[in-house]
C-alpha cells in the first residue's frame, strides 16, 4: 500500500501534476483555483521546474504553450473568468497540437458570478469555448483521490495525443479534503525524443495521425504557427490541406476513443432509472441511487470521467434499456443537451439547479419518484 | 587606376519587387531602373561598394561582392 495523504482537492491536483512530471506552471490567481498555483510555486523549484505568476490568464496560457514547445510539461489553473480569457490560446494549442493541461475549477458564472460557489456551467465552454471546429479532451473527477490520478492521466493524454487537455474541477472538489493513497507504481507518459533528420525536418509529419514534433532547442529548427499548416509547419490554407488536417485532427481522437474515454457505472444492472451525472454532483447522485436501490427501485448511475469526447456509445446502450434517464447537473442542462443527440425527449429528464448548491440526494430521489 | 576596388552587383530578379529603393539611394547611380522599374546595372565601374542598395533592399534582391 502506498502512502496515505490527507489533501485538499486543489492540492491533490498540484501534487498529481508534479507526479506526472510537471516542469512549468504559469498562472494568474483566481478563486477557487488559487491553491493550485500556490502549491506549484512551492513545489516546482524544488524539483527542477519553474513557476511564474503572469500578468493575466492570456499570458499564463501563452507562457505554458511556449514552455511546452521548449520541452517542459506545462500546466495552468484557473476558474470561469480566467478560462474565458484563455479560449483563444487554447485554440492555438489545438491547432498547433501542443501538449499542456488547463485546469478549470468551475465556479458560478457568467461573469464574476459567484466566486466561492460551485457550478458545472463550463461543460460546454470546455467543448466549444474556442472558435472553430475542433476536437477536445476534457476530464472531470469526482473526488480528491480521483483528482490526483486523473490529473496524471490528463498529462499522459496531452503528451500522447499532442493535444491540450482541459481538466475540469468544481469549487466543492477544489476546496474539499479527503484521503489519497499515493501509489508507488504510476505510469507516466514521456514525450518521444525526436532526433533524426532525414532531409529537412518536418515537425508535422504524422505517426498514426499524431505529429512528430520535436522540442525547441534540441537541434531541429522548425516553425510553428496557428495558421493551418502542412507537414513542414508552414502555412497552407488551401481548402484541400484544411480539410485533410481537420479530418485528421478529429480522427486522432475518434480512432482512439476507447483509450480516451472513461466512465463509472454503479447501482443496478439493466436499470429502469438511469442517473447521469459528473464531478462532485455524481456523488450525490450515487447516494440517491443507493437509497433508491434499498427501496427496491432499479436505478443506476452513469458518471463520465472523460467528459469530452463524451462516452456516448456506452451511455446510449444503457439508456436504450432504461425507462427514464435523469441527467443531474449544477447547470442549465449542458450534459442533458449532449444526451439529447441520442436519447429521446420522452426518456430524457434534465434535473438542474442554479443556486450555487449541489443538488441533494433527497431532491434527486424526489425527481425520480415524480417520474416513476 | 591602381588599387581601385571593383565590385560585382548581383541582382536577383526573381526577388526584386521594383520598389526603387536601391537605385534611389545609390550615390553614384551605378544602378538604375529597368523598363519595369526593377533594379539594373547602369555602370558597374561607378560602384563604390557603399552597400546602400543592399541595406535598403527589403527583398534580398541585390548584393554587392568585392571582386578586387
Amino acid at each position, binding site marked *: 500500500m502506498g502512502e496515505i495523504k490527507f489533501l485538499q482537492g486543489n492540492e491533490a491536483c498540484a501534487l498529481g501534476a508534479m507526479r506526472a512530471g510537471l516542469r*512549468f506552471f*504559469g498562472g494568474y490567481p483566481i478563486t477557487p483555483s488559487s491553491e493550485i498555483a500556490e502549491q506549484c510555486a512551492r513545489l516546482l523549484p524544488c524539483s527542477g521546474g519553474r513557476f*511564474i505568476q503572469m500578468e493575466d490568464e492570456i*499570458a499564463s496560457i501563452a*507562457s505554458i504553450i511556449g514552455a511546452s514547445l*521548449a520541452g517542459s510539461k506545462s500546466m495552468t489553473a484557473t476558474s470561469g473568468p480566467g478560462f474565458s480569457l484563455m479560449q483563444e490560446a487554447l485554440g492555438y494549442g489545438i491547432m498547433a497540437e501542443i501538449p499542456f493541461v488547463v485546469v478549470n475549477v468551475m465556479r458560478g458564472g457568467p461573469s464574476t458570478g459567484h466566486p466561492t460557489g460551485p457550478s458545472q456551467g463550463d461543460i460546454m465552454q470546455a467543448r466549444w469555448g474556442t472558435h472553430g471546429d475542433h476536437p477536445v479532451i476534457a476530464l472531470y473527477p469526482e473526488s480528491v483521490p480521483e483528482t490526483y490520478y486523473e490529473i496524471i492521466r490528463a498529462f499522459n493524454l496531452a503528451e500522447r495525443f499532442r493535444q491540450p487537455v482541459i481538466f475540469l474541477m468544481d469549487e466543492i472538489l477544489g476546496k474539499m479534503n479527503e484521503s489519497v493513497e499515493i501509489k508507488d507504481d504510476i505510469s507516466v507518459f514521456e514525450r518521444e525524443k525526436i532526433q533524426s533528420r532525414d532531409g529537412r525536418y518536418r515537425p508535422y509529419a504524422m505517426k498514426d495521425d499524431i505529429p512528430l514534433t520535436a522540442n*525547441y532547442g534540441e537541434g531541429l529548427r522548425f516553425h510553428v504557427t*496557428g495558421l493551418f499548416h502542412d507537414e513542414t509547419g508552414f502555412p497552407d490554407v488551401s481548402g484541400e490541406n484544411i480539410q485533410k488536417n481537420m479530418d485528421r485532427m478529429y480522427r486522432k481522437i475518434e480512432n482512439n476513443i476507447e483509450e480516451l474515454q472513461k466512465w463509472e457505472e454503479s447501482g443496478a444492472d439493466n436499470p429502469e432509472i438511469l442517473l447521469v451525472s459528473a464531478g462532485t454532483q455524481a456523488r450525490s447522485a450515487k447516494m440517491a441511487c443507493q437509497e433508491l436501490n434499498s427501496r427496491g427501485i432499479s436505478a443506476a448511475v452513469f458518471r463520465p470521467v472523460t467528459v469530452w469526447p463524451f462516452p456516448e456509445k456506452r451511455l446510449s446502450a444503457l439508456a436504450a434499456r432504461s425507462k427514464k434517464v435523469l441527467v443531474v447537473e449544477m447547470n442549465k442542462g449542458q450534459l442533458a443537451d449532449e444526451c439529447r443527440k441520442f436519447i429521446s425527449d420522452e426518456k430524457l429528464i434534465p434535473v438542474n439547479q442554479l443556486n450555487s448548491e449541489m443538488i441533494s440526494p433527497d431532491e434527486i430521489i424526489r425527481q425520480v419518484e415524480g417520474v416513476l | 587606376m591602381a588599387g581601385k576596388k571593383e565590385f560585382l552587383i548581383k541582382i536577383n530578379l526573381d526577388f526584386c*519587387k521594383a520598389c526603387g529603393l536601391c537605385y534611389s539611394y545609390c550615390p553614384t547611380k551605378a544602378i538604375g531602373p529597368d523598363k519595369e522599374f526593377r533594379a539594373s546595372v547602369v555602370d558597374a565601374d561607378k560602384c563604390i561598394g557603399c552597400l546602400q542598395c543592399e*541595406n535598403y533592399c527589403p527583398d534580398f534582391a541585390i548584393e554587392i561582392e568585392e571582386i578586387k
Partner: protein
Amino acid sequence: MFDYAEYLRLDKLPHIWCYGCGNGIILKGAIRAIDKMGWEKDSVMAVSGIGCSSRATGYLDFNSLHTLHGRAIPFATGIKMAKPELNVIVFTGDGDATAIGGNHFIHAARRNINLTVILFNNNIYGMTGGQYSPTTPKGYFASTAPYGHIDPSFDIVELALGAGATFVARSTVANPREMEKVIHEGLKNKGFSLIEVVSNCHERFGKRNKMKSPYEMIEWIRSRSVSKVKAESMEAEEREGKIITGIFRQETRPEYVETYDELVLKKARGGI
C-alpha cells in the same frame, strides 16, 4: 560579402511583404546584428505575434514560433523559463506589442527577463488594412480615422523606460546601419531589451497621407529623425513630432530567470 542566405529559409522567398516595405529592411538589419553575436542557429528562438511584421519569423532559419496577436512576449517568456539557454528574440508590431499586447510588454520589461524585442513601428495596423494604431500620429489619416486621427500616441521608448527595460533604443529604416548597431547592442544585453524601429507602410499608411512610394515615406521618416544627443539641446516644442533615435538606456540589473534560479539554489542550501 554578407551571406544572408545562411540565415534565411530561401524556399519561403520572395516574402509576402509589399514592394519597398520597411519590414524587409529591418529583417536584414536584424540578421546582420544576430550574425555579429556568433550564435549557433539552433540556439536562436524567434517568436512573433500577428501582423505583417510578425511574419518575419517564418523567413528565418532559426527555431521559430508565430503565435497570436499580441501574445508573442508571454509565449517567449514561457520558452525562456523552460530553456534559458535559448537566445530568444521577439519580432512584433506597434499594434501587436503596444495595443493588444501592451500589458505583456510592460510586465516583461518590469521583470527584466532576457528577451530582445524588435518592434516594427509602422504607425499603423498594416495587415488588417490600415486602421490606426497606438502610434499613429495625431492629425494623420487611417482607414478608421477617415477625418483625421485624434488619439494621442504612445512614445514606445518612454513606455519601455517607465516599465523598467534595461536596454531601450530607437532607430529607423532610414538608417539601416545604425539600426543594425542598436539591435546588436540590444542582443548583447542580458535582460529585457526593446529596440523600436520606425518603419514605412506606404501601402496602408503612406497612401492615405500623401506619401505614395516607399522612398517618399522613408524620406519623411528621415526628415523627422533627430539623434538623442541633438534632441537634448532642443526645446520641447521643437521636439514635438520628431523621431528621436539612439540608445536611451543600457544598464545591468539582475535578469529574471537567473534571479529565480539563484533563489532556488539558496533554498536548496537551506538558506530560506
